[in-house]
């Protein structure tokens, strides 16, 4: 059974239809890259999965549980959305780190707030906090920032910020980690360190959806590639195949622009 199933997802903003019936599924430990030009609906798709945007039509299910179904209003209950969101993690293009917290605090904050809702929080407070801290330190070490934990976001480079953001998203152990153009806001010389971290996650079999403009990266790291254009998935298949031998004319046209560079 796939870990994620998306069926007939559609979304319009006013007269503009951004998503037109998106269908795809994702297996456990699989990573897919979504490519396509700006305005093709890639970001909106990720936002729908993370409940930042409500689709007009369609269904989203994780591990067989329906999280959203446009036809079933009960799945839209505000009270349930928080819990449902935790199936997903999202790494933003612009990092969105909290500026008033250190790197470590950024990674710990959400876990600490969630821990307060645990029944045993009061009796095991110290223990739980120590666990959260140890977990966050380990995550930061994993993204290569052990020495930078106590620094604030403005003291870090863009690449370091994005690595903190990845650690922050991992802290809640999402089933599926989404990346929204994680290197697009970075200077070219800083993209490598972020891509290396994502590659590491792929090697550890993290289930991921990566929206990216880095074609070589998509080809080498993702298991599968989806090409989107004007709100539909035009082509999908094994990463190397789609990027090196696209079948659809629109995919060829899109990729040829990258080949020229």
């Amino acid at each position, binding site marked *: 059974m796939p870990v994620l199933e998306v069926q007939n997802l559609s979304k319009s903003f006013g007269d503009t239809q951004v998503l037109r019936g998106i269908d795809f599924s994702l297996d456990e430990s699989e990573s897919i890259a979504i490519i396509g030009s700006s305005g093709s609906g890639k970001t909106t798709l990720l936002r729908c999965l*993370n*409940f*930042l945007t409500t689709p007009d039509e369609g269904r989203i299910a994780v591990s067989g549980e329906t999280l959203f179904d446009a036809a079933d209003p009960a799945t839209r209950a505000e009270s349930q959305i*928080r*819990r449902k*969101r*935790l199936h*997903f*993690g*999202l790494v*933003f293009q*612009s990092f*969105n*780190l*909290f*500026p*008033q*917290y250190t790197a470590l605090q950024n990674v710990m*904050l*959400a876990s600490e*707030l*969630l821990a307060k809702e645990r029944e045993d929080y009061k009796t095991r407070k110290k223990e739980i906090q120590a666990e959260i801290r140890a977990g966050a330190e380990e995550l930061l070490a994993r993204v290569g920032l052990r020495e930078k934990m106590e620094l*604030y*976001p*403005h003291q870090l480079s863009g690449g370091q910020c994005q690595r903190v953001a990845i650690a*922050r*998203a991992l802290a*809640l152990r999402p089933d599926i980690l989404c990346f929204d153009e994680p290197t697009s806001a970075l200077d070219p010389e800083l993209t490598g360190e972020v891509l290396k971290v994502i590659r590491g996650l792929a090697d550890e079999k993290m289930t991921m959806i990566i929206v990216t403009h880095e074609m070589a990266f998509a080809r080498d790291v993702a298991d599968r590639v989806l090409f989107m254009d004007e709100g539909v998935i035009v082509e999908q298949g094994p990463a190397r195949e789609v990027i090196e031998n696209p079948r659809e004319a629109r995919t060829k046209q899109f990729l040829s622009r990258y080949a020229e560079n």
Partner: protein
Amino acid sequence: MFQTVVQALSLGFLKTLELFALTLIGAIPLGLVISFGSMSRVGPLRYFTKAVIWVVRGTPLMLQLLIIYYFPGLGLKNNIWGSGESGRFVASVAAFIFNYACYFSEIYRSGIEGVPVGQREAGEVLGMTKSQIFFKITLLQMVKRIVPPMSNEIITLVKDTSLSRIIALQEIIWAGQAFAKTNGLVWPLFFTGIYYLIFSGVLTLLLGKLEKSLAYFRA
């Protein structure tokens, strides 16, 4: 004579300080309420609030003091403020709170709207509740943004309190002028400037400290 003057002026300045403090205590929270009104999704409430802010910011505070103090008695034949110094004081406090709350509300609004939407979204995808997002993420960033413009308004308020002279509130300017009228002494009126200078100097230092204490991050 100098001692008599200082004594009288200090008494007047105490009134000035009371007016200053009560205005802040009232206007800081009321401004937040007004700012929520001006950002409301309910159209009529938003337009009404914006119209009120326009009127209050678009007319002189001195005029507002006169209207608030005299209108109930002259227009409605019901002087809700009562007579005497206490009535003038309460009317002054009411006028100042209302006026400053409108200015503060615009500062708050810019502060809240200035926090990037990505901050809220980052909190949401991490499973935080709306109130956690406001208190743990937005609030401090907003406070940092509004401290400089609020400091400006607060320093202005110190001097604006003298406008209450128009309804004969016995604050420090009134106390200074009294010497000119009764003893023919002009210098006490100008001497009041020293009080304002010292007090605004102290405030500038305190507000500067507050600003510095938030300098550890960039929002």
